[in-house]
């Protein structure tokens, strides 16, 4: 689904067997990098005629991450003990901090010294390589430049500029672009049985990331959280100073949710600005259009713009270890009022 140009280029390389030894797929989380990597791995390992056929045993094993020669490697949580702890669970959200450690690269290299077990190739998909520690990335350079025979490497990352230049330059880069909202809407309705209204909202909220939209569709928690965040914002707008200070305190307690909260608020103010400037057709929060219009009238363009920038600045402060409560207090007090 989507990324037709990348798929066409990769399909050509599979058909003609002119394959790079390492690929790098970049794009925002949930855009389909790992999905594409799995598809490519299927094409390489497929036993059928029309590669990837999706029906042969290798294809099916890869789809379920059960193929012995297709390994997906991801960072581990901080202070993870490789010898004692059980394998880490899948990450809870996109903001969870993890790091790819040098130990994982060493284990990987040991595995690559052996020939593939049942497939044609030993394929390694290294997800979110921007999370690798610097020494892990450096340790990986040698393997990345001259992988053992039988080896194919696929890296994914949010952006090539977040990697060491020495890593990016050793890979063939495919920068995946966001899909059109209409495309996501159609996919949600046709393939995932989403209600049209629901699909429309998710497609807008996803910012072109099909993976995000599908996960939000399958797990209501994300949408619920987003609604909660917007409610917080709307209530705060009608509150006085003392109440806002209390609200900042209670929000700051759930520090894990803050990046998502701020991103939701950022989207909201973007919509307000869009309506104020007469471009209401491109808003994201389509389910709350009344509230958006109301605020677009109530506040000036300048107010909306300042707030947007303040939200963005707060998000940046939080990554720079600023006290979350103080940052939120400042942000909330500066929100436009009645």
């Amino acid at each position, binding site marked *: 689904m989507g990324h037709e140009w990348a798929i066409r280029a990769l399909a050509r390389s599979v058909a003609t067997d002119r394959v790079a030894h390492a690929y790098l797929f970049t794009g925002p989380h949930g855009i389909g990098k790992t999905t594409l990597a799995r598809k490519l791995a299927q094409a390489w390992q497929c036993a059928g005629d029309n590669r990837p056929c999706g029906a042969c045993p290798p294809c099916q*094993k890869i789809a379920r991450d059960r193929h*012995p020669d297709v390994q997906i490697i991801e960072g581990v949580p901080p202070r993870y003990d490789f010898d004692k702890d059980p*394998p880490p669970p899948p990450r809870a959200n996109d903001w969870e901090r993890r790091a790819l450690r040098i130990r994982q690269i060493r284990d990987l*290299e040991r*595995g690559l*010294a*052996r*020939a593939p*077990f049942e497939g044609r190739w030993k394929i390694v998909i290294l997800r979110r390589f921007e999370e690798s520690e610097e020494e892990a990335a450096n340790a990986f350079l040698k393997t990345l430049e001259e992988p053992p025979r*039988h080896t194919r490497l696929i890296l994914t990352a949010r952006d090539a500029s977040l990697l060491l230049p020495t890593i990016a330059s050793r890979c063939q880069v495919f920068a995946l672009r966001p899909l059109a909202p209409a495309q996501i809407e159609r996919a949600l309705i046709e393939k995932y049985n989403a209600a049209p209204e629901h699909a429309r909202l998710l497609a807008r909220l996803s910012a072109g990331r099909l993976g995000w939209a599908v996960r939000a569709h399958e797990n209501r928690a994300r949408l619920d959280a987003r609604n909660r965040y917007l409610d917080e914002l709307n209530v705060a707008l009608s509150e006085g100073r003392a109440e806002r200070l209390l609200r900042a305190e209670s929000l700051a307690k759930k520090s894990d949710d803050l990046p998502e909260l701020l991103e939701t608020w950022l989207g909201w103010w973007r919509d307000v600005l869009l309506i104020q400037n007469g471009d209401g057709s491109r808003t994201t929060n389509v389910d709350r259009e009344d509230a958006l219009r109301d605020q677009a009238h109530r506040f000036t363009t300048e107010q909306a713009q300042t707030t947007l920038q303040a939200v963005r600045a707060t998000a940046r402060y939080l990554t720079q270890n600023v006290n979350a409560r103080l940052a939120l207090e400042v942000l909330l007090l500066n929100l436009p009022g009645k």
Partner: protein
Amino acid sequence: MKLSCMQDNLAKGLSIVSRAVASRSTLPVLGNVLLATEQGRLKLAATNLEMAVTCWIGAKVEEEGATTLPARVLGDFVNSLPPDRIEMELNVKTQTTHLKCARYDANIKGIDAQEFPIIPTLGDGKRIAIEPDALREMIEQTTFAAATDESRPVLTGVLVKFEKDKATLAAADGFRLSVRHTTLSEPVEQPISAIIPAKALQEVARVTGDQEDPIVIAVTENKSQVLFKLTNTEIVSQLIDGQFPDFTRIIPTSHQTRTTVTTSELQNAVKASSVFAREAMNTVRLQIAPANEMGGGKVTITATSAESGDNVGDIDATVDGEPVEIAFNARYLAEVLNILRAPQVALETASSASPGVFRLVGRDDFVHVIMPMHIGK
């Protein structure tokens, strides 16, 4: 799947395959043992993707089928059962296997056998037959010298070469080298050379205990796997990719002194010295003196520790050539003396800074080279 087999057979089979079970893996099915009916027998298999062990045991099959069960749970349970007939029945829907033996019952939850990796079988590859005792001795005399640290994957393996009627195993870890040859009863048509992980070879040596027929070795066409076929067991190992160092260049071609000693005497003296060597980077010194008017040739083995003290041990030796003093790592000496299986051993040395070469007296099928340690004066 419905079958019955004897408890002792199953316990033995499980202990053979259990060494290949991967306990910590991202693929949960690798922690399981495959159980499948095959031509009126029960096939047990386990793999950690580096090595796979398959074992067949006698069973009365009533209904064909296959499943995988957690190795630890199954192994521990079967070991605690009385030596009686075990009845097994798989519920395909729940992937639960019911075991019944005497008055014990158990239901073990498993994973679909489809998830289990496909274990390669003996294809059309070239086959070599070798006597089990000879193979086991060769493995024991080389694998201990392979590297255990993974920084150079090639050195964690053993080079196995077959050429005409000669088989060679060689292992090295950068500080020592062990090479062993043997003669094949049937010459091979084309030379074969492969690097087999030392762990897999040790496993082969372990299961050859009661093997009587020759072991068949096959290297698959694309040279990615090697298979050892025993009567009821097969071991498949991934080969290590890469180029093994040219070990013939490491073996010194000349020597100044050749010292022959009784293996057990040297073994004891090294053992005594290693008590003190432990705290001094494991260094033991060998002072080799040829026979003179004072008496016969001898080797003096010493170790000195700044903290706990020192010791001196003398053993008789036949020394040809110049006197020399050389130091070795006590552990390396102990390990090579341990696997010699010969009453006499010869040490060839050139100087205190060049490698020491251990050979068997009257035989030329074994060479062991140890790099010396620095002697500070």
